[in-house]
Structures are given as C-alpha cells and as structure tokens.
C-alpha cells in the first residue's frame, strides 16, 4: 500500500509512460488471455467483480491459479515468458502435463534445455 498508484508513472518494459487506472482494462485482459493461451492456459470468465480471473488448464480444465486485471502493459507476456522454463520442466502448470507439451511444441530446444537445467533439482538425491 502506498500513496502512489493514482497518477504514478510506471515505466513498462517497453519504456512507455502510462498512468495506473482503477477503471476496467479490457486491453490488459486480452493481453493476459493471449499470453496464457500460448502456454496452454485459458483465462476464465471474471471470478470476482470483473477484477480477478481464474486460470484453467486448457488441456483438462483444472483450476491452476488466478490473475488480476491491473497488470501493467507488457507485463503479462513478460511474466508468462519468464515462466516458460517452469512450465517446460513441470515445476509449474497442470499435473496432466499439458503446459509441458505445449511449451515443447513452441520451442523444443528451449524446453529441453529447461528440463535439463531443472533435472538436478528434481533429483531427490
């Protein structure tokens, strides 16, 4: 909590200057939807007053988590992309393995490298 969000000037990854608003943000919602579609996760309908949305596995429909609609421009795609390795290695995503399959289809080399990188962490020894 701070006094900042009204009229603050967040700098997005792209370097644009935008004010944070409390108004509905359909562009951001579409950006979130698109970012998650790429890795096999569906943005469900609003769960609470149009502000928060459930994330569902596109493979089996299981609830995986949630996200709000006040992310800053460019943030959703960056966050999801930075989690690519986690989906590919199975550290994140549905137990059914759908995101693992989808990320492998997007970039097999990156997915394989992620699995190799986290294989050591998965080794119980």
């Amino acid at each position, binding site marked *: *909590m*701070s*006094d*900042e*969000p*009204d009229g*603050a*000037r*967040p*700098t*997005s*990854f792209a370097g644009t200057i935008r004010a*944070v*608003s*409390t108004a509905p943000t359909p562009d951001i919602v579409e950006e979130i939807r698109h970012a998650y579609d790429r890795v096999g996760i569906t943005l469900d309908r609003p*769960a*609470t*007053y149009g*502000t*928060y949305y*459930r*994330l569902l596995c596109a493979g089996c429909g*299981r*609830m*995986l*988590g*949630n*996200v*709000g*609609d*006040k*992310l*800053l421009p460019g*943030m*959703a795609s960056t*966050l*999801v992309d*930075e*989690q690519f*390795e*986690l989906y590919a290695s199975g*550290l*994140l*995503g549905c137990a059914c393995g759908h995101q693992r399959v989808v990320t492998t289809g997007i970039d097999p080399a990156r997915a394989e490298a992620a699995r190799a990188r*986290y294989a*050591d*962490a*998965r*080794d*119980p020894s």
Partner: protein
Amino acid sequence: MSELDVIRDAEERGRTDLWPFWRRAYADGDPLPTLTCQVSRPRHRFDEGDALPDEYRGLLLKMLRHEGERAGNKSFLGFMATCLDLAEALFPTQEMKLLKAEYLAEELKHAIMFHRVAVGLQHDFALRDVPYAHYAFHLPRETWADDAFFHFLVDLNGAFHARDWRESSYVPLAKMSATVERDELGHSEMGYYFLAHICRERAGKALVQHLLGKWYPAALDMFGRSDSPNAPKFIQWGLKSVDNAEIRQHYKAYVDRKLVALGLEVPDERRHRRFL
C-alpha cells in the same frame, strides 16, 4: 461480555503452536525497525468527529482507499475470495489450508476495524468500491509458492505501514495500528513459513528462486516513487513519518535478511522495477 471480548475469545480459541504467527515473531523483541520522522513539522492531532482541513481529509482518504481492507469495499471481499479459491485448489496440506482460513478470518477482522474508521470519517466512503490499483495485487498466483510470496511480501508491506501509523496524527488509526501491525506481520510470517516448507526440497527451492524474480520488484514497487510529491504532505500532516524511499530501504533490509536465511539469492533491486 463486550463485542471486543467476543472477538478476542474467538481468536484465543483459534490459537495453535503456530497460529498466530506474530507471537513467535515478537517473542524475541520488536522485529520491525523504528520509523522516526527526521524533519521538523507541526504537531497535529485529529480524532473522529473533529473538523478536518481539506488537504488532510483528502490525503487520509487517499491512504485509506489504497489500504483497501474495508467491509464495505466489495473489491476487497472479491480479493479475499481469490484467496479462498487458491486455498481450495492448491493447498499442500490440511494444516496449511487451516492456516489460510485463520488468515482470512483475521483479514475480515481488519475489514470491520477499517469499516469503523471509514464510517467515522465519511459515511459515503464506507461503501465505496475501490479495486486494488497496484499491480502487486494482480500478479498471477499459479502455485502455493506464489501465494506464499504474496503473504510474505505484500502483507509485510501492510505491517510496515501500520508501524508507521503508531505516530499517526489521526487518532483512530494510531489506536488500531499495533493490532494491524502485529497481525500483518503474522501473515507475512505465515507466508515465510510456507516458503521455508517449499524450500526443503530442491525442486521447491528452484521454483521459489525463480518466482522471487516476479515478486521482489513488485514488493519494492509497492512503496511508490522515491520522489513522490505527496510524501512531504503526508509527513507534514503527521499521516506518515518517513518518505517512500526510507520505508522501502527499511523493508528491503528486513526482506533481504529473511531471503538469505532461506538460502536464496537476492535479486538486483533495480531489475523489473516500475516505481523508482
């Protein structure tokens, strides 16, 4: 038995070895830094029902809008519902699911406390819907580790602000500050407990280290820009003691120490930051 005694009794009956987490946190002394105003300022004191200067009222309402934990704020209740959703879908053990239930109960207690402040300040504010504007409240939570980071870092932000209210010129806030501070610190400790549990396994620790890169910048950003033009006004009116940069530095030192204790690497403090 008074209403407060009934609430206190209900809380007492919820106590376990773990809950409330603030007990252990304060057992060895004050865990939070002292926030002392270093600038000269007039001494103000306003109680419920007093006539408030326009600027003071505006700043106070702005502060309470962002605080958000009001019974009449349906967006706050909606956010609590997302916490329930996560607890139902992702809980790792029954014990942790119950801890989340205790957390929710305590946040609803705060909602009643802040509702009373709102009613005492401005009746139409008490039912105003104010969605959380800061992106930290909207980051995706896709695993119990995300939720643990939310509590460890975001609830801790609330504890630091509540600490600052101890000296608030608005008497109703000063009166409730110690309770809110201690509870929010307990919520942060709950998140830390979850993180420590996850980090026991190597895969969990790898996940936590990766997700820290998402939560750390958001946590530091929550204190706002260091050159905020409003900060000196808040300080002059006695609604805050220190500016955004100073409270952020105190917070960062506290968080970094706890992260290192978990064996985690602290991210670069400028990476992915939006409010410097």
